[in-house]
C-alpha cells in the first residue's frame, strides 16, 4: 500500500511530510524535553529565539513544546477515532451487508438518522454537554476520549455504508458460493473471504477521512471543547494567539502552518491513493 502511494510524486511527498510530523510528535518531546505547560514570565509573547525556537505564547509557554503536545493530541484522537470507525462502522456494515434482514434494517436506519445531522454540529453538541462530566470522570484523558467518541459516532455511518455496499456485491461472487459449498461457516466466510477483500476500500476511506477528523478535533479545540490545560490542541493554540496577533503574529502562524501541513499531506495522500487504486 505504501509502495503504491510512493509511486506518484504527490503521494511520495505527502508521505515524507507525514512521516516527519509523526516523528516530531512522537520522538520530539524526547529530544526537546521542555514542559509545554511551564511558564517563563521573562519571555511573554516572544518571537523565535535561541531560548524558544518557535517563540512563546502570552503566558510564556514554549511554542515548540506546545506544538508537539498539540500534535500528539491531534494524532492520538485521529487514531482512536479511526480505530472505532473501522471496527464499529466497518464491522456493522459487513454484518448488515452479509446477513441482510433486520440487522441491515437496524444498521441502515441508525446510519440514516446520523447522516441527517451535520456531523460536526452533533460532535460539538455532545462534547459541550458532556465535557465537564468527562473531565470529572477521567481528567484530561476522559475529555479526549469523549471528543474521540463523539467524532467516531458521527464518522462510522459512512464507513458502514461503504463496507455494506462492497459486501453486498462480494457475497454474490462465485468464490463465496464455493466456500459455502465446501462447508465454510458464516464466521469463516466473513473473516477469511470477505473481510480481506474490504481492506483496500477501508484503507482508502480511512486515509480520506482522517484529514477531516483532524480538522474536526482542531475545531472542537478552538471552541474550547477538546484538550484542557496542561494539554493543548492545535485549534486552541491558534484561537488563543488570535488575541494578541497584533503584538506577535508568529504565534498564530506556526500552529496554523503545522495544521495545514498535516491536513494537506493527508488529503494529497488520500487523493493519490484513490487515483492509484482506481487505475489498478
Amino acid at each position: 500500500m505504501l509502495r503504491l502511494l510512493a509511486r506518484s510524486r504527490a503521494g511520495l511527498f505527502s508521505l515524507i511530510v507525514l512521516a516527519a510530523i509523526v516523528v516530531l510528535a512522537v520522538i520530539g518531546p524526547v529530544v526537546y524535553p521542555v514542559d509545554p505547560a511551564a511558564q517563563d514570565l521573562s519571555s511573554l509573547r516572544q518571537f523565535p529565539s535561541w531560548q524558544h525556537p518557535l517563540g512563546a505564547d502570552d503566558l510564556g509557554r514554549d511554542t515548540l513544546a506546545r506544538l508537539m503536545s498539540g500534535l500528539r493530541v491531534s494524532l492520538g484522537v485521529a487514531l482512536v477515532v479511526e480505530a472505532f470507525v473501522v471496527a464499529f462502522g466497518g464491522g456493522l456494515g459487513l454484518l448488515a451487508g452479509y446477513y441482510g434482514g433486520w440487522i441491515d434494517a437496524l444498521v441502515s436506519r441508525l446510519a440514516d438518522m446520523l447522516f441527517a445531522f451535520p456531523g460536526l454540529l452533533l460532535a460539538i453538541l455532545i462534547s459541550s454537554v458532556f465535557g465537564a462530566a468527562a473531565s470529572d470522570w477521567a481528567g484530561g484523558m476522559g475529555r479526549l476520549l469523549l471528543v474521540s467518541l463523539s467524532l467516531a459516532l458521527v464518522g462510522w455511518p459512512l464507513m458502514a455504508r461503504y463496507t455494506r455496499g462492497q459486501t453486498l456485491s462480494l457475497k454474490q461472487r462465485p468464490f463465496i458460493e464455493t466456500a459455502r459449498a465446501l462447508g465454510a461457516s458464516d464466521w469463516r466466510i466473513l473473516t477469511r473471504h470477505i473481510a480481506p477483500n474490504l481492506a483496500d476500500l477501508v484503507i482508502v476511506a480511512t486515509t480520506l477521512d482522517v484529514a477531516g477528523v483532524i480538522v474536526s478535533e482542531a475545531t472542537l479545540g478552538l471552541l474550547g471543547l477538546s484538550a484542557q490545560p496542561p494539554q493543548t490542541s492545535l485549534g486552541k493554540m491558534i484561537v488563543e494567539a488570535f488575541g494578541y496577533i497584533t503584538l506577535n503574529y508568529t504565534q498564530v502562524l506556526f500552529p496554523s502552518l503545522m495544521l495545514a501541513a498535516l491536513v494537506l499531506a493527508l488529503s494529497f495522500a488520500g487523493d493519490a491513493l484513490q487515483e492509484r487504486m482506481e487505475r489498478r
Partner: protein
Amino acid sequence: MLKYLLRRALSLPFVLLSVTFLTFIVGYLAPGDPIQAMMGNRRDPAIYQQLRREYGLDRPWHEQYLNYVAGLLRGDLGRSYRFAGRPVADLIRQGVPVSAALGGAALAVSVVIGVPIGILAAARANRAFDRISMTVMLTVFAVPGFVIAGVLQTAQVILFQNGLPHLPTSGWGAPEHWVMPVVVLSAATLGYLARLTRSTMIQVLRQDYIRAAVAKGATRSQILLKHALRNALIPIVTVLGPSIAFIVVGSFVVESVFRVPGIGFVAVQAIGSRDYPVIQSVTLMLALVVVFMNLLTDLAYTALDPRVRI
C-alpha cells in the same frame, strides 16, 4: 415526478424526527439538574417539585420528547440558564440576520468564483492553469477556515506594521469588516465547487453531442458556455445543499474568530458558560437549515434536468 416528490416529502418527517430526537436525547442525558441550576442557592423541596412539574421534567422521556417537539412547533426553544430564564429564541433571533447575510454572501462568492475557475480548468485540462488552480483549490478546501484566517490575519498585521493598506482583523459594522469573514467562510465551498465543476465539465466535454457541436463549427466559448455548462450545472446544483453544511458549520468558527455577532457567536459564548439549552437550540436550528436546503436542492434538481422523471 409526483411519486418522487411524494417519496421525498415522506422522508422529511423521518429526517426531522432524527434531528430533533438526537438533540433532545443529548439534552435529556445531560449531566446536572436544570431545575437546581435555575434555583441557584435556594433549596426549597416544594418549589423544586413544583418547577419540575411545571417544566414537565417529572414525565417519562417519551412524553418529554413530545413536549419538546410541541414546544418547537410553537417556536419555543426553551429558556437560557445563563440569562435568568430568557427565552432562547430571543437570544438567537438577534443573530439570525447577521449569520444569514454572511452565509449568503459566502455562498454567492464561492459560486461566482468557483464555477468559472472550474470551467477554465476543464477547458485547459492537464495544462499549467489546470494543475496550479486545482492544487490551490484542494488546499483551500482541505485546510480549515481558521488556518486560512490565521494566515490572512498575519498578512494584515504585517501590512499594518509596514504602514500599508490593510483590513481590520476583527469587529463588525463597517463594510470592510465583511471581507475577511466572507473570504474565510467561502474558502471550503469555493474549493469544492471548483473541483466538482472541473470534473463534471470534463465528463460532459467528452460526450458525442459536444463533438457534433465542434463539427458544426461552434466557437470554443459557445461550446463551453452554451452546450457543456448547461449539463454540467446539474450536479453542481445538487451539491449546493451539502455546501450549506460547510458554511453553517464554518460560521461557528468564523464568527468566533472575527467576533461577528451571529448565532455561531451566541453558541460559542453559550459553550463557554455551559448554557446547554442555547447550544442545543443553535445546533438544532442549523441542522434544520441544512435539512431544508438539501430538500430544496433535490427539488431544484428534478426541475432543472428534463431527463429526470422519477
